[in-house]
């Protein structure tokens, strides 16, 4: 009986120690470092921008290019090089099978909790260095999306710019010569309303660098 009692006490102590150890690891775990999920754009070019009113940009974030940084969230960064206000009609991320085009999931993307924000590019609190230009691009971090990018899928970020005069004057930082793993193209009309089982439109611009999406990180 004494032996059993000792054994039970020993096991209990070990359990307490193990649980305590795990708890301490959790407490001491450092904050996750900022990490690129794919290689973003390396330099700013800001050439050949069309008038963005009424246009959508689609950007492929390829699963085959993910760099192994595990994350349950994804942060998307837009880069502006011109204009005073960007009026966004809608933003989403489409999930498709790797190298495929059939949508299997649609994730909302927001800024300030809305999918249709207006971004004041002349506000120093939004764009600290004024005026915004190719030399002083304004990088806007969208709200973190609860989306874990995985190599078995491709992801398309789609953004639609409302048909208004503000968007006639905005410009994106892209079309750089160091596009990383991202590629984008633009189309007329709102391409952010494709449903599940719908198809991503054909990329007529091949593998050009995106205009607006600059970086994809874990936070």
């Amino acid at each position, binding site marked *: 009986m004494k032996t059993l009692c000792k054994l*039970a006490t020993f096991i209990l102590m070990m359990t307490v120690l193990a649980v305590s150890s795990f708890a301490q690891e959790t407490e001491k775990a450092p904050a996750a470092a900022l990490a690129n999920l794919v290689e973003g754009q390396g330099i700013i070019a800001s050439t050949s921008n069309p008038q963005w009113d009424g246009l959508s940009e689609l950007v492929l974030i390829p699963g085959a290019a993910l760099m192994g940084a595990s994350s349950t969230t994804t942060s998307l960064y837009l880069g502006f090089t011109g204009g005073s206000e960007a009026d966004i009609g809608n933003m989403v991320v489409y999930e498709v099978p790797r190298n495929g085009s059939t949508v299997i999931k649609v994730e909302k993307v927001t800024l300030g909790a809305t999918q249709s924000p207006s971004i004041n590019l002349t506000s120093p609190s939004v764009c600290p260095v004024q005026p915004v230009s190719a030399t002083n691009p304004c990088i806007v971090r969208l709200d973190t999306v609860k989306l874990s990018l995985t190599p078995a899928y491709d992801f398309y970020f789609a953004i639609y710019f409302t048909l208004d005069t503000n968007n006639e004057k905005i410009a994106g930082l892209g079309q750089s010569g160091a596009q990383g793993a991202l590629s984008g193209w633009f189309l007329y009309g709102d391409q952010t309303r494709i449903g599940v089982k719908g198809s991503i439109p054909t990329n007529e611009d091949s593998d050009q660098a995106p205009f607006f999406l600059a970086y994809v990180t874990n936070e």
Partner: protein
Amino acid sequence: MKILKFATLTVMMLALSTFGFSKAAKPENLVRGIVGPVTSNVSWSGYSTFALIPGAGLIPVTSSTTVFYLGFTAGTQVDINNMVLYTTPRGSLTISAVTPIKLGGVSNPSIDLANPTVCPVVEISAFNPCIVRLDPTTITLSALSDYYLVVYFTASDGNDQSVGLTTPSFSQSSLRGSYQSGDDSRLSVGGTIPTNLGFSAQPYMLMYVMTD
């Protein structure tokens, strides 16, 4: 007796707890694979394809195994005569190691592209490529080496005349490739990767290089 039961329960809880903390590793890219849509290139009987996996392009993900994924866009059966992975020092063409690559335990598999268990979407096409996962190879890719995956398609083979391989459209991959007529899958250590091959283009067929 109650104490004994309690002890057993405690041990079981501990075991379950420990088991719960261990997670299965997720497949990760070892290098940036083929990105975006693909087209098709047909008729490969008697040819060897080369795919360069540059050490300089490796993503810092540690793995003791490497898994290659091949893409097919046409045909009903692929007859592969041999598959190998050559290792060279980074930037060199001199082979320092030769590793057999297998599917179903053999280096000369025939792949039934008309079988839905192999290619879920039939009929395969450039729009619906069939991605075939080869057996995991026990090799840890090193940034100090380059690697050449060579696949030789059986000569004078009617099936391989109709086989289509994925042809990348976009240029962002770290993978590079080439091909030529004849069997280049039987080179030995000390041999040389053919110097006449250019590796400026993306590879035919090799789509991804992953940990699993």
